[in-house]
């Protein structure tokens, strides 16, 4: 196992994007910004959203709809689901005080669940790249840890009163007190079992598990357990989730565009394709989160309410599309997720047959 094949880019880039940056941000905020006035962080996050959060949604939409084959393969996700979501948005516009809060609440509860799925997925990808097998029991322990951390975070968010979303008053989801203890018990049991299995593997193979394999779960823990107590950090968690996503989505896009028979393999081409894909997704993100809400500004609702409802719909659509297009069991997806960016610059290493690419 070479260092090149363990990472999508290299140690520094992968470590920072997958979790290092968010852990440093958490430590920084913990040390220097514990103020309850989150406005400066909020505006900073809004700017970052234009270049990271919004494009991450756009990248999913782009990946699904860029190929007619994808639409034919997933007709309900591509065509049926948007109809249902448009109906839910219409219902929310019609009853902004009765239906919209539940639509937004559904998204707010689904979102950290979705983050948990990404954490499991990233761990599986890096484990596969590192040659660290994650069987049924290991996966169960990891899932217990990750999903319990998400529930722990949700409980904290609810107790701390996450009621304001795009200026909309969203009721907190009432949960019984005992759930807290149960969730912590499951989370720590999962952590101990997974750590034990990892330790045994290290002993057996006389080598350490590369830290990058454990970094997604550790990062997830920081986000939802200690991070849940820091309001200024909540605001930037979606940014870090999106950053993780964009790294993987970029590699997949390079695979689709460059990793085909006859594709030009060079750093110049990698850079050009990354710029093309990045700029399209920035524009797509602006269209999704600013353009579409602006088109509905004629509605007799506050613009922020309209934007919040539409953002919830885009998010829920993203959760579905992500589930469809990123299945690791799919051979084409899993093979693409084993590549390193350098392979797209080196002709000998990256000349993949067209039939193996996704959405090409």
């Amino acid at each position, binding site marked *: 196992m070479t260092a090149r094949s363990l990472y999508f880019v290299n140690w520094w880039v992968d470590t920072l994007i997958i979790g290092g940056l968010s852990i440093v941000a958490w430590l920084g905020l913990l040390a220097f910004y514990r103020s309850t006035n989150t406005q400066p962080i909020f505006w900073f996050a809004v700017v970052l959203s234009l270049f990271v959060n919004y494009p991450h949604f756009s990248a999913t939409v782009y990946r699904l709809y860029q190929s007619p084959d994808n639409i034919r393969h*997933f*007709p*309900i*996700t591509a065509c*049926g*689901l948007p109809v*249902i979501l448009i*109906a*839910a948005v219409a*219902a929310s516009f*019609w*009853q902004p005080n*009765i*239906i919209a809060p*539940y*639509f937004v*609440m*559904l998204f707010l*509860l*689904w979102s950290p*669940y*979705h983050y948990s*799925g990404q954490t499991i997925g990233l761990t599986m990808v890096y484990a596969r790249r590192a040659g660290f097998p994650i069987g*049924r029991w290991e996966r169960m322990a990891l899932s217990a840890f990750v*999903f319990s951390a998400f*529930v722990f975070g949700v409980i904290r968010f609810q107790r701390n009163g996450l009621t304001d979303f795009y200026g909309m008053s969203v*009721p907190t*989801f*009432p*949960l*019984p*007190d*005992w*759930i807290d203890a149960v969730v912590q018990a499951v989370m720590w049991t999962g952590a101990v079992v997974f750590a034990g299995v990892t330790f045994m593997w290290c002993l057996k193979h006389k080598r350490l598990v590369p830290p990058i394999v454990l970094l997604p779960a550790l990062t997830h823990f920081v986000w939802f357990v200690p991070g849940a107590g820091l309001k200024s950090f909540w605001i930037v968690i979606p940014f870090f989730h999106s950053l993780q996503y964009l790294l993987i989505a970029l590699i997949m896009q390079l695979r689709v565009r460059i990793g085909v028979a006859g594709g030009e393999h060079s750093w110049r081409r990698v850079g050009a394709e990354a710029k093309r894909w990045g700029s399209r997704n920035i524009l797509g993100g602006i269209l999704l989160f600013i353009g579409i809400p602006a088109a509905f500004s004629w509605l007799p609702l506050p613009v922020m309410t309209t934007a919040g409802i539409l953002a919830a719909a885009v998010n829920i659509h993203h*959760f*579905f599309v992500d*589930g*469809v297009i990123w*299945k690791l*069991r*799919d051979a084409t997806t899993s093979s693409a997720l084993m590549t390193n960016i350098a392979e797209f610059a080196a002709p000998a290493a990256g000349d993949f047959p067209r039939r193996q690419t996704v959405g090409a």
Partner: protein
Amino acid sequence: MHDAVAAVAVAGSAGSAVAADASDFVSATPRELFLAAGIGAMIACGVTSFFLAGHVSERTHVALAMLVVLIGGFCLFALFGMIGREIPVAGGLLFLGLIGLFKLMNQFEMRRDRTSRRKETSDE
């Protein structure tokens, strides 16, 4: 006004029971109308699945069935979302139900043909 509209609506019909139904429709609350729309959407999914029988894959039929679950789940959530304030245990169960819904939706439109199912089993 409501009575007048109801009277017009039932002008061609006889019997007090019918008149009462029409009046119920006119005076339905927004929540009830939303529920009715949800039921309509579920019927539409079922009818779509029926008419597509033999023309689309089993995976598409399963996806339509999952849309029915999603719509029904959201309708129930909109009706009982705050039940935990009165009955904490019910709030906990509702939350577990939501996680189950998310987990189910994570399987949305996955390849479920026999070959891939066998492969998935062996992968695990």
